[in-house]
């Protein structure tokens, strides 16, 4: 019911939205909750377990009652708080967790079965027969559990993430937060003020207090106006600070577009990482409900929420409102309602010394003990101190058991709040979040005056810490009423009295948990699911704790409290993961030949962050194997071009580079001659192989190291580590030049012929023998030439500055094609190196050492190096170790597969008999056979032996002969050719 003359909604701007398909009238500034209450729609949702009717209970993000689904199709957004969702024309909202409809929900039968569905019942049943758990019980439980539903479709909305920095972050824009921001902003500090509401002011917008002679609403509006005029202050509405993290980092969720009908370029949400030198928590407090029989009917709300709907939205949540309280504060609800002309059926106050009412009856010392009304409240039963019971017809009960300060954020870094007997609740413990102070209601100071004073004082302290000068301003005048209350957690009596409205946890459940020895508050929480629902116990934890304390005969402080963990309000995965959907998850690195490769029709595959061509299909080729076989033959018989720029390239300079490399490589590099390249093996300190690659000495004090593509980053990090942490005495400088040079393999018998057509000075075997390196010019461009080979052919790698990469690649490929060759991709590269028994990270997979791969002789005995000592541990050498071997099929089945296991020919393929495994396989067109690289226990001593390869997954068993891993040209004559 709308109340004229009240509220901040724009009565001149009517609009309509839908709830469960029905049109609902509203005004700009309404939330879905206020509009539904205005339309007298009381039942909005169903509870989690018993599917009891649920309506609006609170007025903020903590509301445990009115969870709805917004939108449909791919944008469907479940578990939205009706109390937070602002209305706009065309907004589509729906009830959830009900079937077939909100009104007729079959699972409300659960409510009748409640005696059998108490806390933890599922731990005691559904065990027989065993097979039924997964086939019957669990599917049924899963279907009835859950609340809202995801669409199941890819989320089409956009989200963003951002960083912000400030001197002072003020969390919450009620009187304390506004006063803090004003104080700091006027002093010139960089201030960010966040509030989760669409309008700043906090409780001032829901109350009729005065500040400095004006209404609280007006004072807040003026404060906001003053702050928005300051360049050093950033005001962030609809922004909930969700978590406190280390060194003054805070997470905050800005709901950018949820209140807009169409998004355009606007993201739906933005997740902020705010770095603040100081912060003030001014998050307010949450009024707590009272547990009594059937206290969960739609129409039963918190007293402050009723005031908010009246004063902020101009909506009376009922026509005959009853108040149930244990404190003075709730009497404001009665006074505001009466002043607005709404009938107050009475105030039931558990205190004998409750104040009298003006224009309404106060039932002193009485307590509400039951309610009636199936889908909306119709009446409440209350009990006088003498035990007599009476009934009031009422359609709204405004209850208040007192207030709980919103201490949550102060617990995010493991702080525990302190029990305060005066307010019967927890207050923040000082210093639990470095750099944060608390002010106002969240600090247990409930009067407006105290909020203003603490906000100003908090800002003053922060400014002092930061060395920012300020002039003290007078505080505006405001009410400073004392807060008086009497303990009231649960009204004694039969039936079910709700604590956690969302998870359907009742007083009985907590008592049952205590009886079953779940007496620790953590045990009770976990056993009953108390506080684990979407509101995370904001409404119910303290009362549940009080019930547990009572049931276990302890005081509340020694019963303890569970921890509050971030986020303060639920945050969408899309917001926290903004930017990652689709391609955005990781950077994409492209080689200079990328476009030419794509132009040539090569399928590009991921290689770490890079993309590399898989193969280059020629006309008429229908399978990758055809292309691969051709490319391999091309390299073996003519010349092939392959972009190898993705390999890490590290430029090392300085007089001590040789000594440095001797320490990081197992073999010697200080002896390498200028103009020569050497293959090197690098270990981790634990003795396993880290990486391999060639390093070229371009000058006396100048080396260029290549790493594998995968290890480029880790090797760079490792080199810096070895230098800075172990050998800072060495005069070495290094930098990654991976992206500065485009590098291409030119491989095959015609490689030199091809290059000599491009080089300004021709080379021959004498000037450029195997493993030679040096600077060259190609058609006037300075480059580098390395005579190295991964394919086992007479081959070179030619490098030019990256800007020439594309043209050089195209030129090389064109020349190669003219010579019967062409570009080759990863598949052919892999077959070529398997034919030669060259290893990659398939073999040096982090568990193998130099002994395993047959490179023990590469660990120089003349010097120390990283990993040398540990590689000599007894478990890292010897016959038990699986050693690198080659495999060739010898039986009917000719296929070898990677990831298969090896067994002695007559053994069963079971774990106990496992002898090894295959790592790399390929079909060699050169040898017309499948070839495999494998690790086999004591394998080097077993060349010639016949073993069995079993791939259970693919159903392949192949008899193989063990051989040397170098299948092709074992003498290495071709590379020198």
């Amino acid at each position, binding site marked *: 019911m709308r109340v004229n003359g009240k509220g901040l909604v724009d009565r001149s701007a009517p609009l309509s939205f839908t709830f469960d398909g029905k049109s609902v009238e509203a005004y700009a500034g309404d939330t879905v909750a206020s509009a539904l209450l205005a339309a007298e729609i009381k039942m909005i949702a169903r509870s989690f377990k018993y599917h009891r009717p649920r309506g609006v209970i609170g007025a903020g993000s903590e509301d445990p009652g009115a969870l709805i689904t917004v939108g449909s199709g791919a944008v469907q957004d*479940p578990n939205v708080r009706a109390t937070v969702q602002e209305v706009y024309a065309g907004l589509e909202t729906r009830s959830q967790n009900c079937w077939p409809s909100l009104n007729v929900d079959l699972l409300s039968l659960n409510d009748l079965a409640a005696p059998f569905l108490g806390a933890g019942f599922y731990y*005691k*049943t559904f065990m027989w027969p065993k097979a039924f758990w997964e086939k019957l019980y669990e599917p049924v439980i899963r279907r009835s559990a859950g609340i*809202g539903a995801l669409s199941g479709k890819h989320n089409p909305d956009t989200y963003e993430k951002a960083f912000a920095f400030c001197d002072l972050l003020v969390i919450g824009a009620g009187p304390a937060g506004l006063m803090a921001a004003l104080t700091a902003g006027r002093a010139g500090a960089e201030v960010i003020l966040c509030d989760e509401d669409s309008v700043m002011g906090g409780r001032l917008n829901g109350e009729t207090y005065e500040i400095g002679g004006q209404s609280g609403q007006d004072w807040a509006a003026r404060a906001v106006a003053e702050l928005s005029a300051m360049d050093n202050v950033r005001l962030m509405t609809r922004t909930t600070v969700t978590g406190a993290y280390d060194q003054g980092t805070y997470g905050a969720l800005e709901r950018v577009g949820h209140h807009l009908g169409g998004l355009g370029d606007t993201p739906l949400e933005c997740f902020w990482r705010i770095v603040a030198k100081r912060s003030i928590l001014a998050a307010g407090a949450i009024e707590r409900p009272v547990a009594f029989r059937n206290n969960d009917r739609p129409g039963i709300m918190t007293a402050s929420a009723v005031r908010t709907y009246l004063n902020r939205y101009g909506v009376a949540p009922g026509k005959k409102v009853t108040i149930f309280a244990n404190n003075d504060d709730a009497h404001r609800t009665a006074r505001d309602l009466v002043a607005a002309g709404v009938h107050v059926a009475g105030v039931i106050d558990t205190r004998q010394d409750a104040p009298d009412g003006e224009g309404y009856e106060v039932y002193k010392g009485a307590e509400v003990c039951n309610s009636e009304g199936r889908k909306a409240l119709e009446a409440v039963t209350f009990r006088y101190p003498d035990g007599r019971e009476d009934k009031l017809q009422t359609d709204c009960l405004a209850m208040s058991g007192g207030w709980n300060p919103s201490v949550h954020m102060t617990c995010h870094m493991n702080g525990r709040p302190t029990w305060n007997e005066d307010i019967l609740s927890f207050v923040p413990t000082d210093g639990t979040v470095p750099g944060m102070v608390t002010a106002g209601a969240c600090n247990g100071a409930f009067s407006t005056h105290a909020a203003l004073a603490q906000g100003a004082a908090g800002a003053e302290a922060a400014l002092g810490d930061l060395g920012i000068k300020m002039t003290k301003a007078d505080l505006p005048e405001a009410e400073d009423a004392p807060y008086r209350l009497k303990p009231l957690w649960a009204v004694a009596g039969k039936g079910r009295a709700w604590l956690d409205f969302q998870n359907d946890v009742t007083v009985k459940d907590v008592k*049952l948990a205590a009886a079953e020895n779940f007496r620790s508050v953590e045990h009770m929480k976990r056993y009953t699911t108390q506080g684990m629902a*979407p509101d*995370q116990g904001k409404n119910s934890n303290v009362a549940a704790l009080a019930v547990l304390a009572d049931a276990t005969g302890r005081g509340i402080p020694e019963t303890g409290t569970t921890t509050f963990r971030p986020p303060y309000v*639920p945050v969408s995965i899309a917001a926290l993961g903004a930017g990652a959907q689709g391609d955005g998850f990781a950077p994409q690195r492209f080689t200079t030949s990328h476009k030419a490769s794509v132009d040539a029709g090569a399928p590009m595959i*991921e290689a770490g962050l890079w993309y590399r061509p898989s193969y280059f299909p020629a006309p008429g080729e229908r399978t990758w194997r055809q292309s691969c076989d051709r490319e391999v033959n091309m390299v073996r018989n003519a010349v092939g071009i392959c972009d190898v720029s993705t390999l890490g390239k590290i430029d090392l300079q300085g007089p001590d580079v040789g000594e440095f490399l001797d320490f990081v490589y197992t073999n010697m590099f200080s002896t390498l001659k200028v103009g020569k390249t050497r293959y090197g093996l690098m270990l981790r300190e634990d003795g396993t192989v880290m990486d391999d690659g060639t390093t070229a000495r371009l000058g006396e004090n100048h080396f260029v190291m290549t790493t594998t593509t995968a290890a480029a980053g880790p090797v760079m990090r490792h080199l810096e580590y070895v230098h800075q942490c172990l050998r800072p005495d060495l005069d070495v400088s290094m930098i990654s030049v991976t992206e500065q040079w485009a590098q291409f393999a030119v491989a095959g018998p015609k490689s030199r012929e091809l290059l000599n057509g491009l080089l300004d000075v021709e080379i021959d075997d004498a000037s450029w023998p195997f493993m030679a390196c040096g600077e060259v010019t190609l058609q006037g461009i300075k480059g580098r030439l390395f005579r190295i080979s991964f394919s086992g052919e007479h081959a070179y790698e030619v490098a030019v500055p990256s800007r020439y990469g594309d043209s050089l690649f195209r030129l090389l490929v064109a020349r190669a094609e003219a010579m019967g060759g062409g570009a080759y991709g990863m598949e052919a590269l892999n077959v070529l190196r398997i034919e030669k028994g060259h290893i990659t990270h398939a073999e040096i997979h982090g568990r193998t050492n130099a002994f395993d791969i047959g490179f023990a002789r590469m660990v120089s005995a003349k010097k120390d190096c990283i990993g040398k000592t540990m590689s000599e541990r007894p478990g890292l050498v010897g016959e038990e170790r699986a050693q690198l071997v080659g495999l060739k099929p010898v039986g009917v089945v000719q296929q070898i597969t990677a990831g298969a296991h090896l067994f002695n020919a007559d053994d069963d393929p079971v774990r106990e008999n496992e002898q090894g495994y295959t790592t790399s396989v390929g079909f060699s067109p050169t040898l017309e056979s499948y070839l495999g690289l494998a690790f086999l226990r004591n394998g080097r001593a077993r060349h010639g032996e016949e073993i069995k390869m079993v791939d259970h997954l693919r159903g392949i068993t192949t008899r193989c002969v063990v051989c040397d891993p170098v299948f092709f040209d074992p003498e290495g004559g071709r590379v020198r050719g």
Partner: protein
Amino acid sequence: MRFSSWKVFTEGLSGNKGWSAHWRDAQPKSEYDYIIIGGGGHGLSTAYYLAKNHGITNVAVLEKGYLGGGNVGRNTTIVRANYFLQGNSEFYSHSLKLWETLEEDLNYNVMHSQRGLINLFHSDGQRDAFARRGNMMINQGDDAILLDREGVRKELPYLDFEQTRFPIYGGLFHKRGGTARHDAVAWGYARGASDRGVDLIQNCEVTGIDIVDGVVKGVQTTRGPIKGNKVAIIVAGRSGQVAAMAGRRLPIESHVLQAFVTEGLKPVIDHVISFGMGHFYMSQSDKGGLVFGGDLDFYASYASRGNLPMKEHVMEAGMTLMPMIGKAKVLRSWGGIMDMTPDGSPIIDKMEGIDGLYIDCGWNYGGFKAVPASGWCMAHLMATDTPHDVAAKYRLDRFRTGIGIMDEEGTGSQHNLH
């Protein structure tokens, strides 16, 4: 008291007045034969199997907080037997078999749900590595299926197969993998152990280990000294501190691993899914929350809480893999303290040089699924002084000797590489 549907029914009719404590809260006696430091999943299961398998019931479990309050109370509940190195393979296989009969054994519904685990792979190299893993699983007698891309699409049609940064090549499907209700595991073992006579003592922090001439004599606690002939340290997350009481350093660093749960949602994810190109794994609990996690925060920590970078990384991985979860809202995040060993595999061993002292630690981020077998094997070791066959490779000295290092991730047997 035996739990059953009938009992739930009859109690329901009579007002649920007849339920009693699931376990006894014992007061510490001055002496026990066996003392177990740590009332988490592994400590409780050790106590249970000492009593059940070996008839040893003069046992105290000393817990500084509340039972099941460590990592068994804060994990992503994944149960699987998909290891591929000798040592791990047989151990986790044994554990999974124990899971499969755990409810009958404990008379406690731990909601073990074999909904199937799919490890996705995104390159040929990853496929080969998963093939090796899957083949070893079958070698061991467990189950594995290698799915191609279309096979994955059939099981998980909601993944992004079109635009994602790292295309899905396929997945390794472990049908017997799944989840369980983690707290119930601790409670079920506690109840079983307590019923057999084990004393479970909460709020009893061990402050010292009494060792005389290389022989354990008992422990000092915040509730007084307790004598014992055999003492087990089973305090993953705090192993270093307790071992230090015996003068030992361990090959362990403690790290924080975060986990996350969303608000309740109607069933949308049936399997346990693990992404191969970023750290992300997810399942949906019976209550409807999406339960998920990722990698360590990567800094030594005992804070049981993490920071934003890893939270964001995990969510980003989720969004690239399955953008349909975007509107699920994270309700709660938490952090557990992980005992990280250099090779990522655990330790179940005697403490060399100290008679009567045993240690079960180093579960890295995979201890939950190990709870049954860890207790089984630790009880065996304590009762017989010989390692159980399936845990014989979990030696403390493997790092010194290099014998039997089990580095499943292949990142090198050094700290902070996995």
